[in-house]
């Protein structure tokens, strides 16, 4: 029997031919949900639960889309979005884009969020560029510890969760970026629908 009865709606985006909303049985494997939208290239990760969600690596693609199962891999359905990150994308770059967007979305009430989230995004952007002037991995780990749980709301916690899972799922890419060698996909266009991204990347 399925873990949870009934169906649910999932929004699928990213490296797929048919982005949009699909209705699936609860408990269907993440991999099978992605297949419904016809991935255009093999997936290296799924972003589950939206921008404040979690990156899920291939070893967990078989996880059923149901709360208990997702919880065992540290994820949750969150806002009901699954983004497929193709093999030709850079997880460091995509995480940096999301972190910058979320930093810009701060309500501006608590110091650790106002200063911490832009600092987390800075570290990620330096890593994305493979700038090794400072030990950004060390800085990033420290900053993540200094933003999680320190706001009046959970906005910073979501950013910390997203970036922490990125460090695990894209560990190899982070290693090479941190050693001054960006992965070959570092300059690929984003597969994410981060608002304002096009304009910003055109300006820079």
């Amino acid at each position, binding site marked *: 029997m399925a873990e949870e009865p009934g169906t649910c709606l999932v929004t699928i985006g990213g490296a797929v031919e048919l982005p949009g909303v699909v209705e699936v049985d609860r408990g269907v494997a993440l991999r099978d949900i992605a297949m419904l939208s016809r991935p255009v290239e093999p997936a290296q990760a799924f972003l589950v639960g939206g921008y404040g969600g979690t990156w899920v690596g291939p070893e967990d693609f078989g996880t059923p889309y149901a709360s208990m199962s997702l919880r065992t891999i540290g994820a949750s359905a969150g806002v009901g979005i699954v983004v497929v990150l193709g093999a030709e994308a850079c997880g460091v770059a995509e995480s940096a884009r999301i972190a910058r967007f979320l930093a810009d979305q701060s309500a501006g009430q*608590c110091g*650790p969020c106002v200063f911490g989230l832009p600092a987390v995004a800075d570290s990620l952007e330096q890593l994305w560029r493979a700038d090794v002037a400072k030990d950004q991995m060390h800085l990033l780990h*420290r900053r993540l510890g*200094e933003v999680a749980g320190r706001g009046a709301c959970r906005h910073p916690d979501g950013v910390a969760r997203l970036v922490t899972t990125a460090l695990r799922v894209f560990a190899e890419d982070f290693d090479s970026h941190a050693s001054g060698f960006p992965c070959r996909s570092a300059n690929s266009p984003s597969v994410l629908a981060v608002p304002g991204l096009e304009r910003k990347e055109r300006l820079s």
Partner: protein
Amino acid sequence: VTVARQTIELSVDPIACEAYGYCAELLGEIISLDEWGYPIVSSGPVPTTLLSLAKKAARDCPRRALLLRRHDPAAGSAQRPTAGV
């Protein structure tokens, strides 16, 4: 019969706090500052030897952002915060 004793815990109102940093100056034993000057309070009850300093720190915070809570282990949850008791 064991008598559960009330303990005092410190917390920061993150909206009110504006990183003056007086608390970390007064109470460096249990309060450190992050990269941007905002206080990080060690979790758990304030050691009795530091209680008067903790009260002073709460009283002296220009933003009244450092809160002392009476925590009754028997009741299980922290009670209403009282600034500068």
